């Protein structure tokens, strides 16, 4: 035996396929936590953005929240929620609930900044046009500003969502059976860390590609004019309504006003 030789290792890639169900459910759990947290984070993020863009003291409170929670790591956040809050409020969150709360706390701070930058990117002429047409500020916000800001924010939202899915990996510490927890469990049975963690890494990367594709499709659907097959399909009803109107009015004999 030479001093630097290592024990020969055999890589058994078959165990990944054999345990595909466990990986699949780990992936589903990670996606569920992230998706629920995405919805909450976007809503709270929008509220925070409006708070920060509004008057004092709301703007100061929002700015403090944003700067504090952007700085807290997901691991700290989830331990704090799962173990700390439970003691404080005397109520035990499930790992799933704790994961959603932890992600929402952190990511709403990021979404606040994303929405704030998207809203400030809009020309002031947009709200002026809405107001000049007699629309209330609330209607101008929901029908004029928010749709345009969301469109601007989509690529960033996609980015954040990929980050959220990756952050679920630390929720293994509270026993959430997501991808990393599944990998660790299998590793304690098979002792094949290289194989199993490579599989986990591949799952995350493939997922990032899929999510990227989905958000790009969404971007195309929301782009004006709409681009791509999916967008054409989804806006087909609107197009046919408009074409029908054009046809009817084109053949109408009523005199033009000018």
């Amino acid at each position, binding site marked *: 035996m030479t001093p630097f030789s290592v024990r020969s290792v055999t890589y058994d890639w078959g165990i990944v396929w054999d345990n595909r169900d466990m990986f699949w459910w780990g992936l589903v759990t990670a996606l569920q936590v992230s998706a629920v947290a995405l919805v909450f984070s976007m809503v709270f993020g929008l509220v925070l953005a409006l708070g920060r863009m509004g008057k004092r003291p709301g703007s100061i409170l929002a700015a403090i929240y944003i700067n504090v929670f952007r700085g807290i790591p997901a691991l700290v956040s989830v331990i704090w929620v799962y173990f700390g809050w439970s003691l404080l409020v005397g109520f035990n969150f499930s790992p799933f609930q704790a994961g959603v709360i932890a992600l929402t706390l952190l990511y709403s701070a990021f979404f606040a900044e994303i929405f704030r930058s998207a809203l400030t990117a809009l020309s002031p002429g947009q709200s002026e046009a809405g107001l000049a047409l007699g629309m209330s500020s609330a209607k101008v916000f929901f*029908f004029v500003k928010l749709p345009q800001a969301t*469109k601007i924010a989509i690529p960033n939202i996609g980015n954040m969502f990929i980050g959220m899915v990756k952050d679920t990996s630390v929720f293994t510490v509270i026993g959430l059976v997501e991808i990393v927890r599944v990998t660790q469990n299998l590793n304690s049975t098979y002792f094949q860390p290289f194989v199993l963690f490579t599989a986990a890494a591949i799952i995350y990367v493939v997922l990032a590609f899929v999510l990227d594709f989905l958000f790009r499709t969404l971007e195309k659907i929301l782009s004006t004019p709409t681009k791509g097959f999916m967008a054409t399909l989804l806006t087909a009803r609107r197009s046919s309504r408009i074409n029908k*109107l054009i046809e009817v009015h084109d053949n109408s004999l009523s005199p033009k006003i000018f």
Partner: protein
Amino acid sequence: MIDEQARPSALGEVTVQLRDVRKTFGTKEVLHGIDLTVSKGEHVVLFGPSGSGKSTILRSINLLEIPSSGSVQFKGVEYGPGDSADKSVTRGNPLELRRSIGMVFQQFNLFPHLTALHNIVLPLRSVKKLSRADAEEKAAQSLRDVGLLQWAGSFPAQMSGGQQQRVAIARALSLDPEVMLFDEPTSALDPELVGEVLGVMRRLAAMGMTMVVVTHELGFAREVGDHNVFMEDGRIVETGGRGFFESCHHPRTQAFMGSVL
């Protein structure tokens, strides 16, 4: 100082009336007490060098700009700061005022996320509370009026500046306003597209629409302006009716005309 109040309103009832309107941005006063009366069916043209306060006056009429002091009345109802001590004046909400006054902007300000048709449908539904079908009918009719029916399904980004401005005019008109405000409607257009927008405005004027127009198109002003107002440095320098462009006598007005025409 020009006494606007003394001008006889031979045309009909007074719609918009500004009295001693002042506007301050920070410490700088940009409107130094403006009086302006617009009668029903009248075409008022505001012109003058950049920064003279023309657009600020226009934007004060529908309260997009809230005057620092002064009175902004529409059909006898006070919408501006007014005289708070005067209890005899009815006060109104700018939201209601804007439903009676249409506005066309220099940068068109169409909603880029909506088709031409839905740019018109949105205010019809949210302001006029029309049903979807009725709103679409009316919007298509409005687009047909400005000759853009075929563009109903297009987005603003797919249209020329002139077409976008015509959609913007159709959008404002679809709400049946009593007064139309035009804030340099052709200034952002390529020269060859100016004509189509002025054409729509001419026909609108001929139909008797009450209009207040800020413009550098003095040819258009000469043609439709019943009441012409030359401004400089936040003050009205000289006003006049038809034939004003031939008869103006203030040296500043003449110098401005000389440099523009």
